[in-house]
C-alpha cells in the first residue's frame, strides 16, 4: 500500500486524456488551478467535466497525461493517498453513521486522536452543530449538502472537489448555498474545484471559470471577462445568450475591422475579434442592443442591423424581450430595460432596426 502524499501547491493537469471503450471523455486537457482559487469547470452534461474531477480525485486514472499538486505527481495513486476530497453530487453520506461520525470518518482513517473534536469544529463552521447526533436520512437536502461539505472540509484537503453540489437543491436553497460555499471557501482558503452545468452558479461563485465542451477547455478566465468577450461560438451561447452572425473580414478602419455579413458592413474593435482576417462570427449580447422603429441612419452605420420584422414582444417586468427576424441574418434577440419614459409601442409584424455600442460587439471563430 502506497503512502499518503502530502502535496502542496497549484493543481496542475498536464495533457490529460481519458478514453473509454468507444469515446474520449477528456481530450488532451491542460490547466493550472492556482492554490486557494475558487475554480469552476462549466459545461453541458457529457463534456468531460465530471471525468476531469474524478481524475483529480483518483476515482479514475487518465489514459495519458499527468495530475500534479505542486511538484508532486499524483497520477496513478489511489483516492485515499491524495490530499484531495470530494463533495459528491448525491452527497454519498454514510447512512449507517451519525452526522458527527460521517464528518469524523476522514480524520479517524488518518489516525487523528481528536477526530470527534475536529468533526464538531467543522460542523460549527457549516452551522450544523445542533444536528450532529442525527442520521443523514433525518436531514433535509440542504442540511445533507452541508454535512457533505463538512465531511470533506474537515480533512483540510489541498484541493476540495465539488461535483454539481447544488444540483439537487431548489432554487432558493441553491442561492443560499452559493453564498454559503463562497463564505466557507474564503474562510478556509482552500482550493475549490467546482463542477457545474449551471452558468449562473459558476459565475456567481468562482473567480476563474473554465468552459468545457467535448472533452476540451473552450475558454478559461474570470467570469466577467468570459461573458464580455467570449472567444468561441460555444462560449458565446453557453454563457448567456448571443446574437451571432457569420461573415468575413472585409477591410480595416484604424482600430476596427469591417465584417461583411448579411448585406451589412459591421464594425468590430480589433482587440475584440478572435481573427484579424478571413471568416469570423460577429456577435453582440441581446441586452447590449437597442430596438428602433425608424432607421437609426448613418450615425449608427456599422453598429446597427435592419430593417427586420418584429416576431415577438415579451414584457417581463424588469425588461422587455424582442425577437426580430432580420433577412439573411436570422433571428436576433433584444433585451431592453424599461428605462425610456415613452417606450416605443411595437407590435409583432412591425419593421424595426437594432443598434448597439460598438464597444460591446465581439468576434469569435466561426
Amino acid at each position: 500500500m502506497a503512502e499518503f502524499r502530502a502535496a502542496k501547491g497549484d493543481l496542475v493537469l498536464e495533457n490529460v486524456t481519458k478514453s473509454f471503450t468507444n469515446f474520449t471523455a477528456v481530450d488532451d486537457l491542460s490547466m493550472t488551478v492556482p492554490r486557494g482559487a475558487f475554480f469552476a469547470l462549466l459545461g453541458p452534461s457529457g463534456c468531460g467535466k465530471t471525468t476531469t474531477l474524478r481524475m483529480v480525485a483518483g476515482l479514475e486514472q487518465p489514459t495519458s497525461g499527468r495530475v500534479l499538486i505542486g511538484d508532486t505527481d499524483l497520477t496513478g495513486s489511489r483516492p485515499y493517498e491524495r490530499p484531495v476530497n470530494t463533495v459528491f453530487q448525491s452527497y454519498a453520506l454514510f447512512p449507517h453513521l451519525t452526522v458527527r461520525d460521517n464528518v469524523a470518518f476522514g480524520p479517524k482513517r488518518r489516525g487523528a486522536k481528536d477526530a470527534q473534536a475536529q468533526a464538531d469544529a467543522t460542523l460549527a463552521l457549516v452551522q450544523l452543530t445542533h444536528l450532529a447526533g442525527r442520521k443523514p436520512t433525518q436531514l433535509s437536502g440542504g442540511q445533507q449538502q452541508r454535512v457533505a461539505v463538512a465531511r470533506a472540509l474537515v480533512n483540510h484537503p489541498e484541493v476540495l472537489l465539488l461535483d454539481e453540489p447544488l444540483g439537487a437543491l431548489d432554487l432558493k436553497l441553491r442561492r443560499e448555498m452559493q453564498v454559503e460555499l463562497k463564505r466557507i471557501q474564503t474562510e478556509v482558503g482552500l482550493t475549490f474545484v467546482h463542477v457545474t452545468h449551471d452558468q449562473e452558479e459558476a459565475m456567481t461563485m468562482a473567480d476563474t471559470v473554465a468552459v468545457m465542451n467535448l472533452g476540451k477547455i473552450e475558454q478559461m478566465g474570470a467570469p466577467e471577462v468570459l461573458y464580455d468577450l467570449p472567444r468561441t461560438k460555444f462560449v458565446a451561447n453557453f454563457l448567456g445568450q448571443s446574437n451571432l452572425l457569420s461573415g468575413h473580414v472585409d477591410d480595416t478602419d484604424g482600430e476596427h475591422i469591417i465584417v461583411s455579413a448579411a448585406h451589412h458592413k459591421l464594425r468590430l474593435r480589433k482587440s475584440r475579434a478572435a481573427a484579424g482576417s478571413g471568416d469570423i462570427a460577429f456577435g453582440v449580447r441581446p441586452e447590449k442592443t437597442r430596438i428602433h422603429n425608424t432607421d437609426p441612419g448613418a450615425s449608427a452605420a456599422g453598429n446597427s442591423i435592419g430593417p427586420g420584422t418584429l416576431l415577438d414582444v415579451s414584457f417581463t417586468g424588469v425588461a422587455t424581450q424582442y425577437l426580430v427576424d432580420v433577412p439573411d441574418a436570422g433571428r436576433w434577440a433584444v433585451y431592453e430595460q424599461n428605462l425610456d419614459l415613452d417606450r416605443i409601442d411595437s407590435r409583432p409584424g412591425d419593421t424595426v432596426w437594432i443598434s448597439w455600442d460598438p464597444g460591446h460587439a465581439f468576434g469569435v471563430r466561426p
Partner: protein
Amino acid sequence: MSALAHIGGSPSGTSTTAAPEPTKRGGMAAYLLLLPGLIWLLVFFIAPLVQLATVSLQSQFPGYPGYYYRNVDFGNYGRAIVEYWPHFVRSLLFAGLATFFAFVLAYPLAYAMAFKAGKWRGVMMICVIAPFFTSFILRTIAWRQILSDEGPVVSVLNFLHVLPGGHITETWVAVVAGLTYNFLPFMVLPIYASLERADPKIIEAGGDLYANGFTTFRTVTLPMSMPGVLAGTLLTFIPAAGDYVNAELLGSDISTKMVGNGIESQFFKVLGGYPIAAALSFTLMAVILALVFLYVRRYGTEELL
C-alpha cells in the same frame, strides 16, 4: 434565441379547481382491504395455534393410550424438555452452523452479483433461484447421492485419506451441509438486495476519505449491508432450526436428530404423543423467538425494529 417567451396576450384566467375533499371512505377501505388477510390468519394461524396450545396441556387417560382429556398439565413441557434437550441443542447448533456457512458462502456471491457481475448478473440471479423450481425433498435426496459413500465427494476425500470415519452421510456434517445448501438462497437474496441498493458513490466516498479497500469494506460496505445480513441470517436460522427433512434424509437414526424429528415422531409414530409433540413445538417456538429477539436487539437496525 428560442428562449424568448411568447407574448402573454391575456393571462390564462381559468381558476384552479379545488382539490377533492378527503373522505372517510379512505379509512374504511383500508380496513376492508385488511379483512381477507386477517380472516385467513385467524382461521389458519391463530386457531391452530390455540388448538396446539390446548393439546400441549392435555393429559392422557391412564390405561387408555391414545386417549386424552382436557387439562392444564404443564408437566408435558417438563417431560418434553427432559426427553428431547439433546435435540434442542442439536437444532440450535446445526442451524447456527448452517447460518454461519451460508453467510460465508453468500456474502461474496452477493457482493460479486451486486458490484462485479455486470451483464452476468441476471444469469447468476437465475442460478441462485433455479433450485426453487425443484422440490425441496428431491434436492435433499439428491444430496444423499452426492454425499454417498460411493459418490464423488466421499471417494475423493477417502482417496486423500482425510475423512475420519470414511463416510459423510449419517453424520452431522451431512445435515449441516444439507441445511446450508437448502437455505443458501434465503441468505443470498437479502444481502444482494441491500448491497445492490447501496449507492456506489458511498463506497467511493470511503476511498475518497482515506480508507483503503479493506477499510472501506469494513467501515462502509459491510455496515451498509447489515440490514440484509440480519434478514438473511434470520431467514436461514429460523427455518433451519425447525427443519427435520435434512436430519431425516441425510443424518443418522440417533445421533443427529433435531427437534423437528422429535416432533414428527411424537405426532406420527408414538401412540399418545400428541401433547409432547405440541409442547415441543411451543418450546421450539419460544426458544427461537427469544434468540431472535436478543439477536435483533443486539445487531438490529431501525428498519427491522
